[in-house]
């Protein structure tokens, strides 16, 4: 099997995730895009793991760690979003601009 196939899939998922990250207004959709990017990385991790095929299983182990961290991230992210929603009544990411620098 070609190594480039999973790698191309990985790149595509990552790029699509980037697009979603940049374009989506709803914070939950942004989180989904992040998940897509993480999945892209995971695919390449697994593909390279199979390519090297060594006893450590480093790629697959890291993929599992990434999945775990993604779960934690979603948990925390949603908690923050809920807080945001409770405070502002909206989770539109381009409305959360409290850290902007007002023109002097």
């Amino acid at each position, binding site marked *: *099997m070609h190594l480039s196939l999973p790698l191309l899939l990985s790149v595509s998922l990552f790029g699509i995730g980037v697009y979603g990250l940049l374009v989506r207004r709803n914070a939950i959709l942004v989180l989904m895009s992040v998940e897509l990017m993480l999945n892209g990385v*995971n695919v390449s991790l697994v593909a390279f793991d*199979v390519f090297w095929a060594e006893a450590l299983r480093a790629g697959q182990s890291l993929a599992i760690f990434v999945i775990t961290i993604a779960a934690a991230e979603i948990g925390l992210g*949603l908690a923050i979003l809920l807080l945001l929603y409770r405070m502002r009544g909206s989770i*539109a990411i381009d409305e959360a601009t409290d850290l902007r620098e007002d023109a002097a």
Partner: protein
Amino acid sequence: MSDRSLLSPTGVDVVFALLGAVAAASALMVVTTRQIVHAALWLVVSLGAVAGCYLVLTAEFVAWMQVLIYLGAVVVLLLFGMMLTRAPIGPSDDLTGTNRLVAFFASVAVTAVLGVLVVDAFGSTMIDVSGEPSSAAVMGEALFRYWVLPFEALSVLLLSALVGAIALSKPDEGA
């Protein structure tokens, strides 16, 4: 196993390409659909297809983890999040921001650069997917023999994420 070009696929190649196409296409739907709940459902399809890809790549354990955690936990969490934030049901036009062009070019650039790199570096490299699948036994041995310390550190991370999420979500103290 000999070097072959991308244009002379084997059966495994075809299966993977199909699964990958499904994953990529549904991912596209995730970032473009105008219905927020549909996005979550397309995400299920995409992640599921990726799990299938893992299976083809003989990463059996990772595939089941993907299904369990992503499809079982993450997407459900996302749906809960939508519900709690009163996400609109049905199509809405304000899901996508105004900088669509910038985002498009940035993501295309990222994809192009990475894709060119990957094809340039590994265009004719073959991997062997005929071996024994990485079952739970194999991965367990690897994890608990070589990766115990990161694994335990990760459990602490999960715990603190859990505590943090609870602390943030408590209505009286979080706000």
